[in-house]
């Protein structure tokens, strides 16, 4: 029957060409669109899982959706809603002991204004415990200087951010530079300094991830202190509560200025600094982060001690989520966020785009199906007499159906092949011609600034299935109508 079907496909040339072109267009859009978005999602997953979130994240339960970048977007005001994990040491120990879990590392999340020479910008800051962090996220590549060391106060920036700022300002950012971080809310703010110890690179460069600053956890905790004064987060602050109510806590701007004396040294050092730099310096000394009962108040310019975070917003985990892991986390007052939830809007947006694209594509496929059904309807009715002749010479109905379904499945497959060929050509063209996407959002959701189209094998296989099914399905209804007709009537059709 296959040879009969193939022969019909070849000899009903116009019908075949029309249908095949329709299916080729559908296949091209399906494969190209899905490959692009699947690539973007894979890229995002690779980026996040190996360098930012781990396989999953444990967070404190929250009424609002949270991510490592804050409640919604990484801006200072919104970070106040991030609750702290109340039983961090126990969670760390117990999760670390589970066989499904390979590594656990705490993360303090925040946002701060970062002062670089000639440029001030708001960046997401991740307070990390270096030993665990870099072991859990091996995708981070240190390209200059070194990684933060356990107990060290310091900051690491992405190479791309530094190079961009250097290019924009014409001023060098050097390893060892003391950089200022300022966290503010309303009229309250807090300033910390940390030395730039290294530059790092993510395997995939994206605008939002390029701005991430890795800072020792103690510094971020200290910067976040200001946020703990909000009533809604005070209750969640857990271990920080004592620090908030203790005598060493600075509550507002007046407190910050309480012990300020502008020294000659400070003035002298101000030469060449921006107004903001000077202002930041005269605001010191400000308190150091506390690991318990350590008094705050050491100089912002002084190197920090080596505090291990006693508080963290998140635990980044490498391992599998199993019911046992979920139970343990829930028992200890945490909740599990997938890497995508932890990644925040970017990853969710990419997923939504994929869903939206496929949603749109379902509608497009419906249109293609209708168009195909119409073409097939006409051609099948035109072949009423041929079908009746087949039946007259003894073809049973299942055989007639098989011939027609096979015929159209072959046309669908031919269209798919054409569409695949078109996609491959497009992919090769994009590989050879560098097309850059300027829009930041678009770049993020397509997995980078350079437009690429790696053809995804799974998508190709799925497309073949969908297109052949539509093609074969399109003939089912008209064929049913035609074979219902009595042979004696059908055989006289012109």
């Amino acid at each position, binding site marked *: *029957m296959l040879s*009969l079907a193939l*022969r*019909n496909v070849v*000899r*009903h040339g116009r019908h075949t060409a029309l249908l095949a072109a329709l299916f080729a267009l559908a296949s091209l859009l399906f494969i190209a669109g899905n490959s692009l978005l699947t690539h973007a999602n894979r890229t995002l997953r690779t980026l996040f899982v190996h360098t930012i979130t781990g396989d999953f994240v444990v967070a404190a339960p929250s009424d609002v959706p949270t991510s490592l970048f804050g409640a919604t977007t990484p801006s200072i005001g919104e970070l106040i809603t991030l609750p702290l994990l109340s039983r961090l040491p126990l969670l760390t120990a117990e999760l670390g002991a589970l066989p499904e879990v390979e590594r656990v590392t705490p993360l303090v999340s925040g946002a701060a204004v970062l002062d670089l020479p000639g440029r001030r910008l708001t960046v997401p800051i991740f307070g990390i415990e270096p030993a665990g962090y870099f072991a859990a996220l091996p995708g981070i590549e240190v390209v200059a200087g070194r990684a933060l060391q356990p107990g060290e106060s310091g900051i690491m920036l992405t190479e791309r951010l530094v190079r961009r700022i250097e290019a924009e300002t014409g001023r060098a950012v050097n390893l060892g530079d003391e950089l200022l971080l300022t966290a503010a809310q309303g009229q309250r703010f807090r300033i910390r300094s940390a030395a730039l110890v290294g530059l790092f690179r993510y395997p995939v460069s994206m605008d939002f991830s390029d701005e991430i600053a890795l800072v020792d956890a103690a510094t971020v905790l200290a910067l976040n202190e200001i946020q703990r004064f909000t009533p809604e987060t005070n209750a969640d602050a857990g271990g920080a509560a004592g620090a908030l109510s203790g005598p060493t806590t600075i509550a507002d701007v007046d407190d910050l200025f309480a012990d300020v004396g502008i020294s000659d040294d400070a003035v002298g050092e101000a030469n060449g600094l921006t107004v903001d730099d000077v202002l930041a310096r005269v605001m010191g000394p400000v308190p150091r982060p506390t690991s318990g009962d350590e008094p705050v108040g050491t100089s912002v310019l002084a190197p920090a001690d080596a505090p291990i975070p006693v508080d963290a917003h998140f635990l980044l985990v490498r391992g599998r989520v199993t019911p046992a892991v979920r139970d343990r986390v829930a028992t200890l007052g945490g909740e599990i966020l997938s890497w995508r939830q932890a990644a925040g809007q970017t990853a969710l947006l990419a997923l939504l785009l994929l869903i939206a694209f496929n949603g749109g594509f379902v509608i497009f496929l419906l249109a293609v199906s209708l168009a195909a059904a119409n073409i097939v309807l006409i051609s099948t009715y035109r072949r009423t*007499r*041929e079908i*009746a*002749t*087949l*039946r*007259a*010479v*003894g*073809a*049973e*109905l299942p*055989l007639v159906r098989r011939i027609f379904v096979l015929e159209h499945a072959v046309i669908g497959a031919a269209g798919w092949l054409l569409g695949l060929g078109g996609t491959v050509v497009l992919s090769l063209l994009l590989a050879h011609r560098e097309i850059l996407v300027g829009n930041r959002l678009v770049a993020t959701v397509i997995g980078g600034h350079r437009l690429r189209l790696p053809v995804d094998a799974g998508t190709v296989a799925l497309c073949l299935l969908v297109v052949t099914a539509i093609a074969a399905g399109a003939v089912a209804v008209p064929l049913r109508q035609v074979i219902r007709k*009595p*042979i*004696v009537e059908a*055989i*006289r059709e012109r």
Partner: protein
Amino acid sequence: MNTSTADSPGLPPVVTVSSVHKRYRLGERVVDALRGVSLTIPAGTICAIVGPSGSGKSTLLNVIGLLDTPDSGTIRLEERDVASLNPTEAARVRRTRLGFIFQDFNLIPVLSAFENVELPLRVGQSAKAGRREWVMSLLDAVGLADHWSHRPGQLSGGQQQRVAIARALVNRPGIVLADEPTANLDSATGHSILELMHRFNRELGTTFVFSTHDPAVEEMARSVVRLHDGVVAA
């Protein structure tokens, strides 16, 4: 009841039709196409069913050929009652015991002469061995061996009907039913088609039953059944 027996003494009946009724609805009008037709056609004969237009010739051929079902009555093909077969069984009988020749040839336009003749064999999924030779020998017998690769559109009406005859014979059926096989042909071509039937009847022993309203064609038959207004005329 109108009964007719085509004359062929000594031969067993290959078709027995008993009290067959068939009624059609044509819009608002009800047409009694067959009204209690009974006839017997002996094996190995050439039988003409004759009558004016609308007398029920085609309807009778259709019910004998299982392309249509009678409202009542029985039809026996080679002693088997076939009037109430389900569609699958009817298709099997058509495929194995019957051959059809249509007034409009009904060749499949995208297939070559060879492929059209071969079609019933493909449909019946018969063995491939010897198939090509058999099809070519039939095409040779109808004088179209040189035209085996031509499509129907490249053949004349007479040539198309020859292909249709070859197709009707390819499964070696006991009975070939031909509905006005010469109606669309000129008289000379029609005559050659009937001669071809005679030849196959002689050589293969196939029973040919054809309908016609042409007296000249009627003369070519060995036995005649006359129909008038759905009944067998005396």
